[in-house]
C-alpha cells in the first residue's frame, strides 16, 4: 500500500514541475517508507541553524538544501565536522549569501554520523527490466570499484539477502575492523522498501541513497536524492491547466 505522506510529497513536487526532491524532502520520503535516515533539522536563519546544532549535538554537518542544488560539495555548499556555534553560523551565512533564495529551502543541519563502512542503495527504472534496486560498495570509489548488484522490484527477503552475499566485497557486512556485523534484517528492509517506493510511485525515476553509512551495525541514510520522471514537466503543467 502506498505511503500517503510520501505520495503527497512526491505529488506536490511533481505538480510544481520539479525534476528532483531536495535532500531533506528525499529523506522524508525514505523515512515514510521506514528507511532509517540521519536526524536533521531544516533551519531558515544562521541563528536557527546554531540552535539546531545545539539540539542535535556537535560536531555537525551544515548543508544548503534545495531541490535544484545537485553538486553541493563541488559548489562548496557543504561544511562537515563543524564543531561549534560560530562555525555553524558562519557556514550558514555564507551559504545564504551565495545561493539564490528561490533555489533554497533552508539550511540543513545534521549530526556527523560515525561509521567506517559506507554503501550505496539505489533505485532505478530500466527500459528493459522496469523498477530495479541496486546495492553497491561506497562511496567515493564506487565507480572505480563497480562492485554493484541489482534485483528487480518487488524484492522478497531472499532477494535482499542474496544481494548482500553477491557483492564481491560482501565481507564488509561481517564483523570488520572492530565494527560489529551489519544488522542484516535492517539492510534487507531498506532494499525491499526501495523497491516498494519505486513500484508504488510511478513518478519516481531514480532513488540514490549515497552514502548509506553503517553506524556500528545500523544502516543510516546520510545523503539521498530522489529524481522524478522527466516527462513529469509536461504532464504536470497540463494537469495544472486542466484544473485551472
Amino acid at each position, binding site marked *: 500500500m502506498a505511503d500517503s505522506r510520501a505520495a503527497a510529497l512526491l505529488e506536490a513536487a511533481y505538480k510544481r514541475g520539479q525534476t528532483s526532491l531536495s535532500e531533506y524532502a528525499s529523506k522524508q520520503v525514505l523515512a515514510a517508507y521506514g528507511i532509517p535516515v540521519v536526524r536533521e533539522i531544516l533551519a531558515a536563519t544562521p541563528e536557527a541553524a546554531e540552535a539546531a546544532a545545539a539540539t542535535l549535538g556537535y560536531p555537525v554537518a551544515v548543508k544548503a538544501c534545495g531541490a535544484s542544488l545537485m553538486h553541493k560539495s563541488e559548489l562548496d555548499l557543504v561544511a562537515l565536522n563543524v564543531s561549534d556555534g560560530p562555525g555553524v553560523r558562519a557556514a550558514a551565512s555564507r551559504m545564504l549569501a551565495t545561493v539564490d533564495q528561490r533555489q533554497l529551502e533552508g539550511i540543513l543541519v545534521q549530526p556527523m554520523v560515525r561509521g567506517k563502512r559506507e554503501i550505496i542503495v539505489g533505485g532505478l527504472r*530500466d*527500459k*528493459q*527490466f*522496469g523498477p*530495479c534496486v541496486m546495492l553497491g560498495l561506497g562511496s567515493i570509489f564506487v565507480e572505480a570499484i563497480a562492485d*554493484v*548488484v*541489482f*534485483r*528487480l522490484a518487488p524484492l522478497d527477503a*531472499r*532477494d535482499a*539477502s*542474496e544481494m548482500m*552475499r*553477491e557483492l564481491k566485497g560482501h565481507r564488509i557486512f561481517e564483523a570488520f575492523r572492530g565494527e560489529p556485523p551489519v544488522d542484516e534484517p535492517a539492510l534487507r528492509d531498506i532494499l525491499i522498501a526501495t523497491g516498494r517506493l519505486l513500484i508504488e510511485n510511478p513518478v519516481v525515476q531514480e532513488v540514490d541513497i549515497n552514502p548509506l553509512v553503517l553506524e556500528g551495525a545500523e544502516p543510516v541514510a546520510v545523503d539521498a536524492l530522489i529524481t522524478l520522471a522527466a516527462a513529469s514537466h509536461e504532464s504536470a503543467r497540463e494537469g495544472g491547466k486542466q484544473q485551472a
Partner: protein
Amino acid sequence: MISNMFSDSDASIADIKHKYHALFEPSSVAIVGASPSPLKWGFRILLNTKLGGYKGALYAVNPKHKEIIGIECFPALRDIPGELDLAVIVLPPQFVLESIRECAARGVRACVVITAGFGETKDSAAHFSQEEMVRIARDAGMLLVGPNCAGIASPDPHSLYSGMVYRYPKSGGFSLVSQSGNVGMTVLTWAELHQVGVARFVSSGNEAVLRSEDYINFFGHDTRTKAILAYIEGTTDGRRFFNALRETAKRKPVVVVKGGTTSAGQQAANSHTGALAGPTPLFVSACRQAGANVAEDFYQAMELTSAFVNQPLPRGRRVVIVSEGGGWGVIGADACAKAGLDLIPLPEGVLQELDTILPGWWSRGNPIDLVAGNDRTMMTRAIECVLKCPEVDAVLVLGVGYMSSRAAEMHRVPELAEMGMGKLIDAACDVELHEVRKINSLIDLYDKPIIVASDTVLLAYGATPNAAIREMERLGVYAYSSPHNAAHTLENMAERYEYLNNIPRK
C-alpha cells in the same frame, strides 16, 4: 499480441505444446529455396536435413527442378500434396515475404526463416519487411522462427536436423536456444563429440515473432527437455524474459550465457543480431533472481547443462576428492575452495574403512590420493566408501581411463603380442570399463553426483579412442578436462539445490 505473463493453466500448456510440436515434431517439412548447388545454403540445408535422417515427409521447393539429391522438388508450396507442418525458408530476401504469405495461405503451421537481411540491418525497408512478416504470421496463427537464424533440431521423435548446422547429436534431455547460430553450431558439435543427448535446438535469429523467452517457456513444459541452455545477447522486453525464466526455473534448470558483457563484445552483439544488449550487471542479476544459473563461458555452460540432465543435485556443498595423482588433487582442492565448496575432513569411520581399501601409505585425508595403485577396483571402492557417508554431498573424481589409454600404447609393442599378452591387456581394460559403469551405477544408487575430470579425455576421441572415457560418456557421465570446470559445475549444482530449497545462495 505477445503476453507478458506466462500462464500455467492446463489449457494454455496444451496449446503451447501443440503449437511448438509443429516446429520440433513436424510430420512434413518443405525446404523453400532448395538448390542443387553445393555452394548455396539452399542446397546445404536440404542436405543437412537429409543426412540427419528426417523420418517425416521431406519436400524441396524450387520451380526450376524436379528433384534435388533424391528429394522431390515442387514448383511452389501450393503444389505440395497434403498437409504441411513446417516450411524452412532459404530464399533471397526479396522473395521471403511472398513465401511467408503462401505459407499462411496454405495453412503451414510453422516457419523457419533462415534468410538474413531484415531487422538486423540499418535499412528501413528491411525493417518494414520484418514487421510485415510479423503481421502475416500473427494473423495466420503461424509460428515463425528468425529471420536471420541457423535453423532447428529435434532428434526425437522424427530425427529432425534442419538448418545450417551440420551436426547430429543423439537424443536426450538437453535443450538449447541460441541468439547466435554460430554458438549453436559449437554446442551441437560438442554434444555430438561427447555423446550428450539433445532434446531441442533452436537458433532464434532476429526474434521477430518468437523470442528466447517463448522457447524457454515451451522447454519448461516440454516432457523431452530436462535442462535448458540459453545463449543471450540481448532482450527486447527484459521483464518478459525475466518472467518466463522465473516460471521455468521453478521446474527445470536453466543455464544462461550472456554474450556482449564487455563494451567491445556489446558492439559486436549490436551489429550482429540487432538486439540491444542491456547493461550486463543488471541482466546477470535478473537471471540469478529468476533462479537461473549464469555461466560466463559457454563450455562451462554446456558442461553444467549436461550435468543437470544426467546427475542428481548435491544436497549441500560438502565434497570429497578422489584423485589418481597428487597434482590434480592439489589443483582440485584449490578449485573447490575457489568455488565455495567445502572439502570436508574425512569422518573417522570413513578413514577406517579406507584403511582396508587403500595401501598402508595412503594420505589419510581429503583429497584422497590413490597413490597410483595397480588395483583398478580400488578407485570405485574408495568412491563408494565416501559417497555412502551421510556427511558427503558429492564426490569429485580426478583421473579415469588410464588403463585404456595405456592399452593403446601397449598394443603397439609386437613383443607383447608375441608373448600372448594382448588378452591380458584387454582383460585389464574390461575391468576398467566395468569400473566406469560402476561409477555410473553409484550415482543412481546413492542419488548423489559424481563429477569426473581426467586428462585422458584430451585424446579420448583421437586416433586411439579411449574406451573407458567413451563408455562413461555414453552412459551420461561427462569427463571434464580440468578440475576447475568440474568444480564450477558442482558449485552451480549446489546453488540450484539452494535455490529450490529457499536457502540464500552465495
